[in-house]
């Protein structure tokens, strides 16, 4: 067991209040409807800018870069309140969650000064150019190339499943800069402006009829030298670190919380068996919250909690699906609102255990860590 202090410091209550007031006001004004999975599907730059104006994006980053200089626990408090409210946060989520921290860790001072204030102000919207048609779980198999040219790099290739690429101002890009014997070497990370000539974005519609992800093609796209993130050829180590930020957060178990909240309202009449199932969900939820809090505390101490983050995502995604199953039980035909919320969450659910690392892959990461000789 790890040593931890009291989960909630009093000053975090103020952050929660700020988020509750903002989301409450927006709902009262009819500016959004809480939905499951809105951290990926709910794209509203105005909402993100409201958060930015309150200093709630990049809250852990140094103030010199437009951040708030606060703890991961503060960030957790803000984000979990946003998820609870089912708020439309997709415009800043990726930048705040992983690109900002990656730039802070690996970027030059110039790159930090260029990128971080833009994310913190919700002016920059990031998408993640990692997956390719031939590189899914096996991310190191990326084929998109970046070749050295005068003053920078020339990129050619295809990215797929890129969430929000059609609305992004920037993309993170993982590309091969060298052909090597071992595929984990010779990879490099870049930050690329989406309006660079040669980038083409075409929509991929999901099974719910929503358009969130896309295919991106890069044809002789020029990326200036200063947009290399970290060390040329060293991307593999950097990106695995980035993924522990991506996996350890509360959105890995709260995607269906808005549905859960509705079922709580409607579950009462369903008897002992339902109470029992609900109780198990509550127990799981409490445990997951504790785990994400531990991950936040480890990040504060500068650690990269790979096993805990993968465990959190693995269990959290299962919980998200359990919520959908539970809602089906309590969702009688007369409950139209619950039925609609259930259907929406169900249609979003197959992606939970795939994006950010498939469940089976997470287990193999844990096993690899655990069975190191």
């Amino acid at each position, binding site marked *: *067991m*790890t*040593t*931890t202090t*009291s*989960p*909630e410091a009093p000053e975090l209550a103020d952050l*929660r209040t700020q988020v509750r007031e903002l989301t409450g006001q927006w709902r009262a004004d009819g500016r959004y409807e809480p939905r499951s999975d809105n951290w990926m599907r709910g794209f509203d730059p105005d909402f993100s800018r409201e958060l930015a104006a309150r200093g709630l994006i990049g809250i852990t980053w140094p103030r010199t870069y437009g951040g708030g200089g606060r703890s991961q626990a503060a960030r957790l*408090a803000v984000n*979990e309140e946003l998820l*609870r409210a089912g708020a439309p946060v997709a415009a800043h989520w990726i930048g705040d969650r992983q690109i900002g921290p990656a730039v802070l860790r690996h970027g030059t001072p110039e790159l930090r000064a260029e990128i971080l204030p833009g994310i913190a102000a919700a002016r920059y919207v990031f998408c993640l150019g990692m997956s390719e048609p031939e590189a899914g779980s096996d991310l190191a198999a990326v084929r998109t190339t970046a070749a050295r040219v005068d003053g920078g790099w020339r990129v050619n290739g295809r990215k797929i499943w890129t969430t929000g690429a059609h609305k992004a101002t920037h993309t993170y890009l993982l590309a091969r800069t060298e052909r090597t014997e071992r595929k984990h070497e010779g990879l490099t990370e870049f930050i690329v402006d989406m309006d660079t000539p040669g980038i083409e974005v075409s929509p991929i519609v999901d099974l719910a009829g929503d358009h969130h992800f896309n295919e991106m093609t890069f044809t002789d796209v020029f990326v200036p030298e200063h947009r290399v993130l970290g060390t040329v050829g060293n991307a593999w180590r950097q990106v695995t670190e980035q993924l522990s930020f991506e996996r350890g957060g509360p959105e890995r178990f709260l995607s269906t919380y808005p549905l859960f*909240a509705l079922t*709580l*309202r409607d*579950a*009462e009449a369903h008897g*002992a068996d*339902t*109470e*029992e*199932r*609900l*109780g*198990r969900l*509550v*127990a*799981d*939820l*409490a*445990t*997951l*919250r*504790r*785990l994400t809090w*531990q991950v936040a505390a480890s990040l504060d101490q500068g650690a990269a909690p790979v*096993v*805990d983050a993968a*465990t959190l995502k*693995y*269990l959290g995604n299962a919980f998200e699906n359990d919520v959908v199953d539970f809602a089906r039980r309590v969702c009688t035909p007369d409950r139209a609102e619950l039925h609609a919320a259930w259907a929406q969450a169900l249609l979003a659910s197959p992606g939970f255990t795939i994006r950010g690392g498939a469940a*089976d892959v*997470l*287990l*193999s990461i*844990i*096993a*690899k860590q*655990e*069975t190191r*000789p």
Partner: protein
Amino acid sequence: MSEYAEELRGLVSDVVGGTPVEARSSDEVWRKLAELGLPLVGVDEAAGGSGGSYDDLVTVVRALGEHATGLPVGESALASWALAHDRAAGERVTLAFGMDAVYEDDLSVVRIPCVPWLRQASAVVVYGRSGGATYVDLDAPGVEVHEGVNLAGEPRDDLVLRGAAMPNLPGAPDLAEARARFGLLRSVAVAGAAVGAYTLTRGYVMQREQFGKPLARIPAVATALATMRVATVRLDAALERAVANLARSGGTSQRFLAAAAAAGVTAAATAATCARTAHQLHGAMGVTAEYPLHHYTKRLWSWPEEAGAEADCARYLGQLALAGGEAAVWDELTC
């Protein structure tokens, strides 16, 4: 977590580590644990205890579980803690809950089943259904001990009272708090045994070779092993939360009672996963009497339900959630 964790873990492992479980004499081990004062951890020195906190007791019980040892350290410490306002503590006092008590044909005869290590005790603190606690001297007239065991062969004896004298303990803590503290210690012991089973399994699949390589290199095996690891990480998180809630909000708070129930639900799930998977990954070796795995798995099969049914814990949490509504659930979660 206990600030003496390392030291306490060291003490436990000095006593029980090294010797195979079946070769340990429980009397001998108990004597050594008692010499170290471990069965009275978390009881004020002024009341005859060893001092220290409940956290320290948690550390000791978990360490014992890791060594597949279920000696009643937790029971003794809790019974003495419950006694502390009324009587002096004693390492040979155990704890019984009368919730499952049955009356024999003659209604003056009460049987309380499955009291841990009763035969070794000299007295027992009995919590009745009504919530009051009483003190039963096992040498007093009208008191009988009927021996029984759980799947792991650990004493679970029936206490039979035939009109025996049972002085009240007016200063004893609430039934709900005592039950929750006891239940949480059982979950802690489960966590220890689950880690013990995991450690054995991990070692086994890394060393045993089939198809020309260690089992751990076969993806399906690695996945199964990871599932065990996930289960233990999860249970530890639930336990830490419960222990933290106790320290912060007190033993009678709903916050603690609910967190202890959540830990109970999690412990049951973790125990089931770890026992099943540990056996699967050990193949035939794991089902032999000689190989030590069964000492862990039998405890994982026995311990979770001994402190109250998992379904009851779950239902309690479900009812709380329905009564309090979403806002209460959320506050409880994020406090």
